[in-house]
């Protein structure tokens, strides 16, 4: 996904002279093509993320459209107040790109996990949060983001994620629907969709009618779509590679609590990471997804449990 980001932002920059790319001393070779074509529009800001974020806001206040790129925890947790005051309060069009969503960098340890990022940023007024599931969706959504500039957090994976999107329509603010169904609704967000889709296919093979969607635009959430599904499906499974607080599960629970459902309420299963640090052992993304029960088989089991 990182390479798709580098390629797409380069393309966007070729059509829009306002685009300036800032990096927190990572992804150096990835941006070689961008740097050689636009040497005065790429800045390695060093390992100084707080400065990078506020600096990007300064650029934006003068009419530029900056994008800041580094690993998810560093662009979010470390810079929370800069994001709040300089981007969101002043409502400046900066895109923050966090690579290594969720447990992408599982082996690197807790410092590199991003399981609270959506929860933190979703509290901020004016902030838009977008989590594409694969390269193709990332490419489309990034182009859409640049058509309507505002403070945006783009939460992406690292590299080697499977391609998931085939012919599905991808539109910012609209869930990407992989299949329509009336029995079970299976919602995920971002790169965990690989597991969600595997589980969904197994459920369909077992004869269930399953709605599968990537709720990639986490903020603002498409409430109309979610409320319709709450009417249509009796069981709703929500999966995220994020802690249980403040992410997609919290947001959907919130939509449900505020909705006026007619008829019987659906049953919910929320699959997310417990509010605890994974420090007892190390492992790769697959291992930690299994441990936290957000892998395909855990999703399948949650869907068929009574």
């Amino acid at each position: 996904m990182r390479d798709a980001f580098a390629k797409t932002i380069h393309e966007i920059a070729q059509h829009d002279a306002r685009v300036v790319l800032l990096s927190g001393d990572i992804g150096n070779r990835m941006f070689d093509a961008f740097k050689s074509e636009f040497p005065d529009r790429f800045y390695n800001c060093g390992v100084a993320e707080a400065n990078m974020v506020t600096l990007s806001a300064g650029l934006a206040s003068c009419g530029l459209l900056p994008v800041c790129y580094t690993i998810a925890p560093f662009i979010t947790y470390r810079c929370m107040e800069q994001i709040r005051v300089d981007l969101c309060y002043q409502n400046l069009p900066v895109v923050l790109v966090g690579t290594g969503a969720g447990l992408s960098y599982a082996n690197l340890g807790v410092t590199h996990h991003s399981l609270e990022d959506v929860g933190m940023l979703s509290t901020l007024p004016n902030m838009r949060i977008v989590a594409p599931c694969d390269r193709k969706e990332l490419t489309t959504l990034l182009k859409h983001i640049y058509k309507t500039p505002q403070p945006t957090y783009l939460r992406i994976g690292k590299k080697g994620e499977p391609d998931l999107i085939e012919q599905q329509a991808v539109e910012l603010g609209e869930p990407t629907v992989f299949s329509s169904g009336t029995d079970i609704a299976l919602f995920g967000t971002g790169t965990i969709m690989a597991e969600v889709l595997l589980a969904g296919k197994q459920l369909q093979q077992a004869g269930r009618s399953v709605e599968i969607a990537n709720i990639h635009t986490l903020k603002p959430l498409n409430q109309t779509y979610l409320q319709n599904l709450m009417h249509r499906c009796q069981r709703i499974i929500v999966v995220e590679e994020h802690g249980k607080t403040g992410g997609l599960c919290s947001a959907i629970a919130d939509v449900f609590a505020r909705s006026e459902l007619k008829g019987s309420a659906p049953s919910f299963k929320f699959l997310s990471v417990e509010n605890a640090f994974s420090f007892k052992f190390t492992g790769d993304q697959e291992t930690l997804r299994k441990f936290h029960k957000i892998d395909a088989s855990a999703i399948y089991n949650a869907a068929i449990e009574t």
Partner: protein
Amino acid sequence: MVPNNSVLLQLAAQIRYRIVELSHRNHITHLASSLSCVDILCALYFETLNLSLENINDPQRNRFILSKGHAVLALYAVLEKRGILSADLLNEIGTNNALLGEHPSMNGIAGVEWATGSLGHGLSAGLGMALAAKIQKQSYTVTVLLSDGECNEGSVWEAALFAPKHGLKNLTAIVDYNKWQATGRSQEVMSLEPLAEKWHAFGWNVCEVDGHDFSALTDALNQESPLPKAIIAHTVKGKGVSFMEDDNNWHYRVPKKDELEKARLELLGK
């Protein structure tokens, strides 16, 4: 026409009285922090920045960021004197339902470039503006006023590392070095000294001036440099009112009626 020093002295005294009077009337704190930077702001707004009501929203204007946002009274009183901010608005500062609060905020107020109040943001924001000028091939300058206490913030030094690397000669940082922060001497709270050497070591063109000397301030501000400039302006907290000078109680205290009268006599002589 550039005012001469005696005119500036008179303007600065009037601005100081306006600050003290507003602090008394509307119960606005950070009075001494505002008084220490009045002369710096006068040098900027009456000598070097070339900002007026006519060009305050011009994309080519010079930018000024009050990074030490708690000195908002000084900024607003200077903007008022410069004809950029209306007296009616300023009279209501800090009162219920007023547009102006006790830190610069984003309420569409002409002359406020950045919402500050949380320290350590302004220099990075100024860097962004200075870099934007370079990218867009514009000639405007960016000036950021910091407090000495603010130099405790790590983000200030992140910004300080970035600016020389990118040759941002259109950027000036001024430190209002009044030797105090909220709860004590800035040298005692943290080891701030040697402050000028720190900026120098980070690659800035540094000069130290008396922050109450208009000629020295103007010379430093006008000095051409191939590097970003850091002006360490030595100031007195509470400057201009004898019983407030160098007394840190006036970081949070507001003057009573009799104190306002004393200040008026000292500043306006009547």
